[in-house]
């Protein structure tokens, strides 16, 4: 029995490895094709460098500290803007979802502001804050705040009223019901917002840095563009892709950890 169970789990893990291996196969095939086509020199190499040249350039940029410097600037802005925006959005969303008066008061304002693209705020923030570190952080804050507020408030409002009624009959006050019933049951909706906005924060920071900020991955992209350094541009885009993917996966992992055991069993 033990052997068969072990055999079963080994088979499963093999299967998992094979599945993930199969997932990487198209990526390797794509990179191979890219390398091959670039080396045929049909397109000039400065316009379409081979993958190996991009890797070499990535190592050079890491070694001379340029990539680390710009990446850390972008990362810092994303983290500060996203964390503060998320916490504020979460707090306001919880209050709006919980309190009907707050919801009815602020819901029309949120509904009006929510659809404005984060970069739409750039001109206003440039005038308000000037071109300094506050500008990209404010943009990321805005980009995170409204969607997370919206998802949190709707997640709380969607919790079945009967859970709240039962909690009340069990002697719980409203504040405790908010924290022990409404907030946990709204987590799936909150995580959906966090996951989407975590990737969006990176897309927005790159755009903001390209337009207005002299440092960061976006700024490096613009500088590479003016020097027609396609290899650096591709390195920057690869960093962006990895960061968007990693942030989204991180929140996906957190969501699974926080909710899977009671949602799926």
């Amino acid at each position: 029995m033990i052997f068969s169970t072990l055999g079963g789990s080994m088979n499963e893990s093999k299967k998992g490895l094979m599945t993930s291996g199969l997932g990487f196969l198209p990526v390797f095939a794509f990179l191979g094709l890219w390398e091959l086509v670039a080396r045929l020199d049909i397109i000039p190499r400065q316009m379409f460098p081979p993958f190996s040249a991009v890797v070499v350039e990535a190592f050079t940029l890491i070694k001379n500290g340029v990539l680390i410097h710009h990446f850390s600037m972008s990362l810092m802005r994303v983290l500060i803007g996203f964390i503060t925006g998320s916490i504020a959005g979460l707090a306001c969303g919880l209050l709006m979802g919980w309190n009907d008066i707050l919801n009815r008061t602020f819901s029309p304002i949120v509904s009006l502001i929510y659809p404005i693209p984060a970069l739409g705020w750039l001109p206003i923030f440039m005038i308000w804050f000037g071109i300094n570190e506050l500008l990209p952080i404010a943009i990321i804050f805005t980009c995170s705040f409204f969607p997370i507020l919206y998802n949190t408030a709707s997640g709380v409002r969607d919790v079945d009223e009967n859970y709240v009624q039962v909690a009340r009959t069990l002697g719980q006050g409203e504040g405790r019901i908010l924290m022990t019933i409404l907030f946990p049951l709204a987590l799936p909706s909150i995580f959906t917002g966090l996951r989407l906005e975590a990737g969006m924060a990176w897309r927005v920071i790159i755009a903001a840095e390209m337009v207005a900020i002299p440092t960061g991955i976006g700024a490096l992209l613009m500088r590479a563009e003016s020097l027609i350094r396609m290899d650096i541009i591709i390195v920057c885009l690869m960093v962006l892709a990895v960061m968007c993917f990693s942030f989204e996966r991180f929140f996906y992992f957190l969501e699974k950890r926080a909710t899977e055991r009671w949602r799926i069993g």
Partner: protein
Amino acid sequence: MRNGLLKGGVLAKIALKAVKNFALNSVDLEVHHRETLAIVGLTGAGKTTLIKAVAGLVPYQGNIFLNGSDVRSIPIRERRIGYLPQDLFLFPHMTVFSNVVYGLSGMGLGREAIKSQGKDVMELLRITHLAGRYPVNLSGGEKQRVALARAIAPHPDILLLDEPFSSLDVKTAKYLRLEFRRILRDLRLTTLFITHNLTEAEEMGDRLAVMDKGSILRTGSFSEIFISPNHPLISELLGSHTILNCKASHPIGNGLTQVETGKISLVVPDEKESIQKVAIASRHVYISKEKPPGPDVNRFLGTVEEMVDEGSLKRLVINVSGERVLAEIPQGDEALHDSEVGTSVYVILHLRHLKVL
């Protein structure tokens, strides 16, 4: 329990005129201390609305007194009410243990006291082995137990049960009813139990209240209501029964009593000291053209007096030594193949279906 009223004293007085957006017309009820009052009625009678009004979950016109105080001025969380809704609403993100102790956590108890009280309640409901599981991993019966444990853990003054067995299969529901009844009696909890099922009401309740269209039609013991329903709806809920008057009775041991009706003699469960009547539902009267095997206890030879087709059923009146016994069998039942008025048949009355009144 917080109050010290003796059984029979009034714990809750409910006098409702209307509930906003619901058809609740006139309710006048007294719930006695430590009794289970079963409120029975058809779907839409206003039973759930009534229970929600008592719990403070819907606005109402009228008065609800609990322990002599009008509960209108008492916030829901201070009413000391245990509420078990129809769909249970176990908190899905909490383990069984966290669900059970949730009501204790707002009472200012220490961590150890909460743990120990939670364990006690879980032992009482026999769910200790489920402590670490989430509701998503529980069976229907286990969920019911957890929900009851959660409701009774904070020692409520009154327990409100809203059709807790309606989603269970017949066997599990029957088993749980007996278990819940035992627990409610052991804990001497005052309970308002809602159901549309008269059997459940009879099994669970010390007294019955029959409700229809937002009003209470009748309250009383099951026997009182059974003997004189006084209302077409109550008769409908009770279904057709044969009621036999008891002229004499004497215990024969093994928890049984011999009852003489003057015309026939039958054996019934020894449930009451003074037996006035014995009732049996038409659907529980078994009929056979062949003599059934076994001793001649509660088996009688009779003659079919009337036979009426009524939809999918055939209703019969059988004369057994002068007693008219009502019976119903499905159309096409082989037991009465080729029978007609005047045919001799055997009537079998199962002991467990005989109601002693």
